């Protein structure tokens, strides 16, 4: 089957979950253009609640672009235009009445390169709760910080140096600090854009373990370059190629029994 034929007209191949999960994010025909260039050609996908969904695909296929639509981070890029529908719990997030700041409190994000604020570890985690008014008192705030750090499996490592700068931690610790910072505002969804690509294998293993734990309370969408990582942490996998969502389905199904030629080529390492 030749790739050119499959691109136009286009139909995503979908395999439903065996155990049906409630849908958290529902998107229909999401198109993104940067200036004149269309980077996403219409992506429709349902992302299940309290599960990990992995986006895989070769570089430049639009994974990050799509991820950044979900918390409207693309709004900050001059010349980026988003079309289509994205619903979070049946609420259209591109509704003009919706407050972007509130949306970003509900949909947190962890970036490729750990980017803690150049402030203390405590202030890094406390910043979100402070600006969203989540803590009534100092004790409240401290509790939020401690539980967030605990949930991010970082507390034991930093409990003696909460007042030291977050930038002084190791790469893996910094990334977990960023996860703690995202958790601190009690989001419903956490978006992670290649969160382990700047980390060593041990730090990666820790973050993966953490993602697995977080799945109980949060809906997680993770972009990853590593097929093994997608296979280890996710329940559903979506394969992107050249701005199209080619195939999506339960992770074990996509990896063991891909229905699309390009999916198979990609996961067997024939391109990417």
């Amino acid at each position, binding site marked *: 089957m030749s790739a050119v034929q499959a691109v136009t007209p286009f139909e995503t191949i979908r395999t439903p979950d065996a155990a049906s999960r409630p849908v958290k994010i529902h998107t229909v025909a999401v198109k993104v253009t940067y200036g004149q260039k269309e980077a996403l050609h219409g992506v429709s996908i349902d992302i299940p609640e309290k599960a990990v969904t992995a986006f895989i695909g070769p570089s430049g296929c639009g994974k990050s672009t799509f991820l950044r639509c979900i918390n409207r981070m693309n709004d900050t890029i*001059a010349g980026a235009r988003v079309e289509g529908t994205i619903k979070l719990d049946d609420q259209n997030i591109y509704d003009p009445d919706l407050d972007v700041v509130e*949306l970003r*409190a509900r949909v947190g994000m962890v970036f490729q390169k750990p*980017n803690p*604020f*150049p402030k203390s570890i405590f202030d890094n985690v406390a910043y979100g709760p402070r600006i969203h008014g989540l803590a009534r008192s100092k004790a409240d705030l401290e509790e939020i910080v401690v539980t967030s750090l605990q949930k991010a499996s970082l507390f034991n490592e930093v409990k003696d140096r909460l007042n030291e700068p977050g930038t002084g931690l190791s790469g893996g610790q910094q990334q977990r600090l960023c996860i703690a910072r995202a958790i601190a505002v009690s989001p419903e969804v956490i978006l992670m854009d290649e969160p382990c690509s700047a980390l060593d294998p041990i730090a990666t293993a820790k973050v993966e373990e953490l993602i697995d734990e977080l799945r109980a309370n949060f809906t997680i969408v993770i972009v990853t370059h590593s097929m093994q990582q997608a296979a280890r942490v996710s329940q559903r996998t979506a394969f992107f190629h050249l701005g199209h969502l080619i195939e999506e389905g339960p992770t074990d199904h996509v990896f063991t029994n891909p229905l699309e030629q390009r999916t198979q080529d990609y996961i067997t390492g024939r391109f990417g």
Partner: protein
Amino acid sequence: MTEAASRLPVSRLGGPEVRAISRIDIGLRRRYAAERRFRAYGLAAVTIALCFLLALFGSIVGKGYTAFQQTRIAMMVDFDASIIAPDGDRSPAAVLSGNAFRFDDLIAASLQKTLELDPDDEDGLYDGLDLLSKGSAPMLRSMIAKDPSLIGTKRSVDFYATGDVDSFVKGTIRADIPESQRLIKDKHIALIDKLEKDGALHLAFNTGLFTNGASTRPEMAGVGVALVGSLYMMLVVLVLSLPLGVAGSIYLEEFAPKNRWTDLIEVNINNLAAVPSIVYGLLGLAVFINFAHLPRSASLVGGLVLTLTTLPTIIIATRAALKAVPPSIREAGLGVGASKMQTVFHHVLPLAMPGVLTGTIIGLAHALGETAPLLMIGMKAFIVEYPTTPLDPATALPTQIYMWATEPERAFTERTSAAIIVLLAFLLAMNSLAIILRRAFERRW
């Protein structure tokens, strides 16, 4: 096969590879030579710059350091109540009014006693008075007005010697040139020697240099008014240009859409930074003085004009500092749900602050030394009184230097250099403050 190749012990290296190896060798040697050469150029450049700097400082300090000391003549003054307050009124107002010559009488009396002159020796008295600054009587009067309890007592008072006597004592007017060409005559020299021997004539630290205003008599002239004027101007510049510049840069860098209009604004800000400062002086004259009718020679107007010259510098530096803040910090802020403004003010601006401060201080330092625009708005007036507000007439350090540099007296020459030293010290203090502030902000990383 080349010669080099045949010398190589390992035979499995083929011809082309061998050539490649020898070529890399030459390249390396050349590269190191180039590097050494470049370092030598750099070192030479730094050395030359240092030499010039040393020569500059050497000549200024060499000419100016003597101005920090001044020749004084200590004389016992009898604050005779019958002369100072003939009608018995000892109030400051009464001291300041009335016959001004009565203070000259006091000085003459104490001079006669100090020089042990015959009361009838008028020539001797006048020769002695030649040594004293013409500002001595006013000085005595204001001294008494400030402290009327002096009346009726006897006190030793340090009088200023004239600028010429001062120059003679410091050796800038030499005794070995013919008397007819000398400002200090032989009879004066005799008196100076006598006073010196008695211990009445001595060198003291010249506080007046820092506290006095303008004067035609060099021994009474100081940079006090100019210092206050410059300080007021720096405050005006800081208060106006820092918030305006930073706000403008933040808007342009973080909020403004990138389109043709903002491009045009950017180009023009860069152009404004290159506009000669005298043009800003003309602008200030037209707008602030002729149109807005602000007072001439006021430090407020000077500050406004210097704000105009400084703003482009601050904007350019601030925008560069904002641009240097990694975008990941902005993403982090937005990602946890901070608004754009919160992100900028909580995270981006604090990180840009060292750069902003550096730019501001460079701008202020330029403004402090700026002379041409101040001449245009009349800040080179003869001002004796301290300005109490920025609306009062004042001078500035660079214009004071300019004015003194045009005076012929020897004593003004050394004061010109001394004023330059004061200006440089002011600059150095500002730069040190900048470094301290920058360190304080940098530690937040």
